[in-house]
């Protein structure tokens, strides 16, 4: 059975190779090949899943060793896969949502002349993402980690003719690289500390590293956090995600909502033992999570671009997950659970947004929407279900997962627990506010578009079916997972489990969650439902303007990094020319000058030469005499 694991990755990889190298012959069938291989991968995953369910809880993990990758001295890396419950969860999510989005893209990209390539990239992404979650050591995970970064780069910049897309792609890759540096330093630290970087031995030894190793373990954990921040768009490396919306919408749904951006959560959960052994690092994790969930939410409130609003939301929701993961064993399972439910509803929301854009001539400004519910009923309903799920409407997926996280945050105890729980509650309120805002601006109110130019219409079947499936997931997944805490127990062998004890009981928390939710929705309705939405954005308060500009993060980056960097490189170029090269050319010039002086002795007059000869002879005589004298 474990031999099937490689097949999971191989299928999309073959697809990518076929589509990218296949040439024009595959232009007409390429998208179906890609979709088929994604579905094939999902089928394999399903087989493996049923097989896993059939085995005892302790014996569910599978391991496949393909070959030795890099053996140099004590450094030993394998190409080997590990499929345990955590990986399985991800594999199902990735292949499942991935297949749906492949299907959706068939319709969405129908008129793009480079569709074949798009599917090749999508398949490449699937392969890399699967590699990431299936790797049995950190180095192989790193390969997947950068692989998804590459796929993300290619897909964000898919419409390369748009300079903004190319810039966004580059930015995403670069910011991710900063995070990747964290991962690579973590691997180096792992190697020097433990002599290996395979998951099993490292995680076994993490707890027993002893006091001498705690500093090292903390450092490793912090570096892993840096990596997670880069990939999952957490503060301070969050700036790329908003720009990444330049990519085609299916990409935003798959990569920048459902799967890739959650890789940071996977990394932290997977390295749980390391974080558990480093409390300081855990504090950092929850701090990052809490800050980001508020940051993302605030940014999401101010954006008029529907995809960017959703991107802010993604940031915020992943903040929840990171925070949950940082809480330790009481949070891992809920982090993953929220991740899965988020995968469903956020992918659904993005696909819905894509569908809207598809019908609106690729208009993204919500201020030009309005009243679309009649024109796009399916989109409206699926989007609405996703909306209810994300704000945590009781009974839907988001409610179960988010509520648990808030509960776990309070359960952390002490001031820290109160702060975290408060932040999570506040986040929930703001989530309700901005999602309601999106909903109202898009589907309700009067139309703010020109009927002569735009003809909103429902999308084709290939697009609506995935949306419907995902809407089902958004509605029911959370509930299903929570029956007897099925999901938590499923993950227990991997993530370990601890039950937290919130200071004021689960009911109070749930009640509070529902109350803040209602407040958020009500505020949004007061602002955007009752009053007509102006077609051009009002100037807004200072906060609004800052939030529109991603809370000035980009401006900071621009001033400090871009301009500073440009200055630095320009200075260096000048120095290279004047100082480093100048030292050498300077020597040459000096020699030239000296020889110029000497050359003047060679004036061509015999008598001058004769004088020099006599001078030389005199010197010789003098030296001879002096030598004799000495």
């Amino acid at each position, binding site marked *: 059975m474990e031999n099937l694991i490689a097949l999971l990755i191989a299928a999309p990889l073959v697809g990518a190779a076929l589509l990218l190298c296949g040439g024009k012959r595959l232009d007409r069938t390429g998208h179906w090949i890609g979709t088929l291989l994604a579905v094939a991968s999902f089928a394999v995953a399903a087989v493996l899943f049923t097989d896993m369910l059939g085995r005892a809880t302790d014996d569910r993990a599978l391991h496949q060793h393909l070959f030795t990758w890099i053996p140099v001295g004590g450094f030993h890396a394998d190409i080997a896969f590990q499929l345990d419950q955590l990986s399985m969860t991800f594999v199902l999510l990735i292949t499942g949502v991935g297949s749906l989005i492949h299907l959706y893209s068939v319709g969405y990209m129908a008129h793009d002349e480079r569709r074949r390539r798009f599917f090749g990239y999508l398949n490449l992404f699937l392969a890399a993402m699967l590699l990431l979650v299936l790797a049995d050591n950190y180095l192989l995970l790193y390969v997947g980690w950068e692989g998804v970064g590459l796929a993300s780069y290619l897909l964000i910049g898919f419409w390369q003719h748009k300079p903004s897309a190319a810039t966004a792609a580059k930015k995403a890759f670069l910011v991710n690289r900063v995070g990747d540096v964290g991962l690579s330093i973590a691997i180096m630290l792992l190697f020097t500390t433990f002599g290996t970087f395979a998951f099993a031995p490292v995680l076994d030894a993490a707890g027993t590293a002893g006091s001498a190793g705690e500093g090292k373990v903390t450092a490793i954990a912090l570096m892993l956090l840096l990596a997670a921040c880069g990939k999952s768009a957490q503060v301070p490396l969050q700036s790329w995600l908003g720009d990444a919306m330049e990519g085609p919408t299916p990409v935003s749904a798959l990569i920048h909502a459902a799967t890739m951006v959650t890789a940071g959560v996977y990394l932290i959960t997977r390295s749980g033992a390391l974080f558990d052994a480093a409390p300081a690092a855990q504090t950092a994790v929850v701090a990052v999570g809490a800050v980001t969930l508020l940051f993302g939410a605030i940014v999401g409130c101010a954006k008029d671009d529907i995809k960017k609003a959703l991107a802010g939301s993604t940031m915020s929701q992943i903040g929840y997950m990171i925070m949950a993961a940082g809480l330790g064993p009481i949070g891992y399972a809920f982090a993953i659970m929220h991740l899965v439910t988020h995968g469903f509803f956020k992918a659904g929301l993005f696909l819905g947004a894509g569908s809207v854009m598809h019908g609106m001539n690729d208009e993204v400004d919500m201020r030009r929407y309005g009243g679309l519910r009649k024109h796009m009923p399916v989109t409206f309903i699926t989007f609405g279900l996703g909306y209810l799920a994300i704000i945590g409407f009781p009974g839907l997926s988001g409610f179960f997962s988010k509520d648990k996280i808030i509960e776990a945050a309070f359960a952390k105890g002490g001031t820290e627990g109160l702060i975290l729980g408060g932040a999570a509650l506040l986040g929930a309120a703001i989530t309700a506010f901005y999602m309601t805002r999106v909903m109202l601006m898009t589907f309700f109110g009067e139309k703010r578009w020109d009927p002569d130019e735009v003809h909103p219409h429902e999308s084709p079947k290939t697009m609506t079916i995935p949306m419907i499936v995902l809407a089902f997931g958004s509605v029911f997944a959370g509930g299903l997972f929570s029956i007897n805490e099925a999901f938590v127990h499923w993950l227990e062998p991997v993530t370990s489990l601890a039950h937290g004890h919130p200071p004021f009981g689960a009911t109070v928390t749930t009640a509070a969650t529902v109350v803040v939710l209602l407040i958020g929705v009500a505020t949004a309705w007061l602002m955007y439902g009752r009053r007509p939405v102006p077609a051009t954005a009002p100037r807004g308060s200072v906060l609004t303007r800052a939030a529109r500009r991603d809370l000035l993060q980009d401006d900071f980056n621009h001033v400090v990094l871009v301009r500073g960097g440009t200055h630095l490189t320009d200075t260096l170029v000048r120095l290279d020319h004047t100082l480093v090269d100048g030292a050498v050319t300077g020597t040459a010039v000096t020699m030239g000058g000296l020889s110029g002086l000497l050359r003047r002795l*060679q*004036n*061509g*007059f*015999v*008598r001058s*030469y*004769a*004088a020099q000869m*006599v001078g030389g002879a005199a010197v010789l005589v003098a030296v001879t005499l002096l030598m004799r004298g000495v």
Partner: protein
Amino acid sequence: MNPVYYLYLAALLFTIGAAGVLIRRNAIVVFMCIELMLNACNLAFVTFSRLHGNLDGQIIAFFTMVVAAAEVVVGLAIIVTIFRTRHTASVDDASLMKL
């Protein structure tokens, strides 16, 4: 009188000859100065011959004369040739050694 004085005389004549080579521009006179230097050397050789009590110094002086003769023959021929082509015997005018 000490025969060393001959050496002093030779040195003096040699120096005068050298200075002449440096100062004069007429190639013929320069040549004469060279002859003067050679003669000064010859005087020194002859004196040394006397000092050492053997004839080797005189032999060398003899060879010097022969070589000087040869040199004069060739040198004067060169001067004549140069004069023919350039209508001058000034060494400064023949400054083609410079690029």
